């Protein structure tokens, strides 16, 4: 099979909110037009699945969270990073239900409650809150009465809003986009804690990917804002543009990961 006709497979995780088929079709077609090759998006429920597919060679690229990237830093290469509200960073938000539950104002108030994580490989949805626990309690496994994974950031918002969980941890970008798209749900959750900034979930490829393909992909993404259609697609994602990523931006996440894993051993 010649390289020109080979399908480019890009994995997607719940780091982005809009996994609607119509949007993805439009984006796919735009990429196909720019790359001159067929493109396919691949979605899976868990971050781990996408990471595995990427490392296994089935996927050529994937949009992942910073945490899986740092976990496999030596086998992955950064392609592009979104610029959101002028910066290439985002935060982890600890959210609680709005309204009557005003007694919860800080992380420590969550003792004995029910907590919703997003994905075990999510920085904002798992790593950061776990890291926070380390500084609050000596027995992080029993701090909450019950905790569980929702497998998607928007699910975490739903879980907290419905009362299934007392609080949860979400990606700030997803949380804000969700409120933008569904103003009727806007008032149901509130942020009780904001993390320091971390590197925005990047688009990565495996290190072994063909270098020309990798650079072509990168170039297409970086010039997306130059194109009218591309800008339209970016605005659907509430993003300014894609830019050249900086590896150092993910050191923060790596540091937290090291501490949390050390604690676990």
């Amino acid at each position: 099979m010649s390289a020109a006709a080979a399908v480019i497979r890009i994995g997607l995780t719940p780091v982005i909110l809009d996994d609607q088929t119509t949007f993805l079709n439009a984006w796919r077609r735009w990429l196909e037009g720019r790359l001159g090759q067929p493109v396919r998006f691949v979605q899976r429920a868990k971050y781990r699945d996408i990471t595995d597919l990427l490392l296994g060679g089935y996927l050529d690229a994937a949009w992942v969270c910073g945490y899986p990237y740092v976990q496999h830093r030596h086998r992955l290469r950064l392609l592009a990073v979104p610029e959101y509200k002028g910066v290439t960073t985002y935060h982890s938000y600890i959210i609680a239900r709005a309204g009557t539950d005003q007694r919860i104002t800080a992380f420590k108030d969550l003792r004995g409650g029910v907590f919703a994580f997003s994905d075990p490989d999510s920085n904002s949805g798992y790593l950061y809150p776990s890291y926070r626990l380390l500084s609050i309690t000596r027995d992080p496994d029993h701090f909450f009465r019950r905790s569980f994974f929702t497998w998607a950031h928007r699910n975490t918002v739903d879980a907290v809003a419905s009362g299934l969980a007392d609080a949860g941890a979400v990606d700030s970008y997803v949380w804000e986009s969700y409120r933008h798209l569904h103003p009727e749900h806007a008032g149901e959750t509130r942020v009780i804690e904001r993390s320091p900034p971390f590197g925005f979930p990047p688009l990565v490829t495996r290190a072994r990917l063909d270098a020309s393909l990798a650079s072509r992909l990168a170039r297409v993404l970086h010039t997306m804002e130059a194109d009218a259609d591309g800008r339209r697609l970016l605005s659907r994602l509430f993003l300014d543009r894609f830019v050249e990523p900086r590896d150092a931006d993910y050191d923060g996440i790596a540091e937290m990961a090291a501490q949390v894993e050390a604690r676990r051993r």
Partner: protein
Amino acid sequence: MRFGARSYRTRIPLSLVAVAMGTALALSMVMAYETYLNVQVDNLREGRRLAHAMIPVLRQALKHEDVWQAYEILRGPAAGPQEGSAVDARRFVLVDKKGLVFASNHPLDYPVARPVGPLLPGPNGFSWPPGEQPVTRRLDHWQMMVAPILSEDEVIGHLLVLLPRAAYWDRFIEIVRGGALVMLLVLAVVLPIGWIWGRRMVAPLARLSQCMARVGRDDLREIQCSIATGDDEIGTLGRRFREMLQGLRQKEALERQMVSQERLAAVGRVAAGVAHEINNPVGGLLVAIDTYRHTPLERRQSDKTLDFIERGLRQVQEAMQALLVESRLETRALQPQDIDDVQRLIQAESATRERRLHWHNRLSGPVALPAGSVRQILLNLALNAVQATGPGQRVEVVVEPRDAALVVEVVDEGPGIPQHHLERLFEPFNSGRAGGTGLGLWVTYQTVTQLRGEIEVTSEEGRTRFLVRLPLGEGGASHV
């Protein structure tokens, strides 16, 4: 208005309508009750089915400790476009084997990882059912189904399905409302039909009744009715009535014949007297003519003789007039002259018998009564009185208007009518007199009745009195 007092034209249709409505109502109530029971059963069945569908996935969620997945399954039935509150109102609670809430579709009411017992309705003391079959319980306003979740014969949790009884009510009301609408539509069609049908059933009876009511009121010859003739009871009534009407008509015709016969018979009775009355002046007239012929020419007084003859002939004419009138049917109003005519006729009769006749005609003008009928009554009673008295006995006749009526009073000094005869006095063919028709008083009675009057008789030895009172201004029958 009492129900029983209303006409059958209302009662029958009303009864039909009442029966229809009563049936509709009874049916409605029975069906409503059935519906309520069915709604309960349906709800329970659906709850069971849902539980059955959810349990395999819930089993996996329990084993994988996947709270979110369990939540997504449990809120499935209510997700999507909002239906009525009934679906939302159901509670699905997944409980782990320690009795703690694992997940539910109403997380605020059933917090995760809390014991479920205190959260359930009804008095505390909830215990897990033994065995592997689902169990249904009633708690307060809820119906609860408990289904154990098994993994390789080990109970790893339970699914609780709570159905609020209020939900039945909404659905029940919905169904009943629909049913009531249909019922009303059906009634809207059936009731008018029932009413009309009832009316039509009763119509022949009503017509027959109306016809019968006319029998006493109107002339029999003028009563024309369309009478039902069928095989049913009303048809039989109709046929009998028609036969009866025929009979009545024949009887009336016969009576009319008898009355006119009696009139002629009465004329016959006075004929002799009248003949006598005519004979007397006629004899005198012939004598006068003879005298004239035998008078020498120069002494003949033709004027005087002619006057005398004229007067005599007038007398004859008047006598004949009275008789002629009597033999004719007179429908004109009564005049005082008529009373004088009858007196003349009676006079002739009584004179031959040397009765003393005292006659008092107190009419001053015409009277609104048929002349023929009154003359016949008067003639009959007066003749009877004259014939009942002996020589030298008195007969007194008074005819006068009194209190908006014409009063005819005939009194005689005869031997009187015996008591047993008095009771049957006005019956036909009942004269105590040989040679008579026996119809005189019967006809008199019929005539008086036809004129809406009264006749009264009192009798004792030496004095018999007949009193007739005929009201004026009433439309009596214009026929005899």
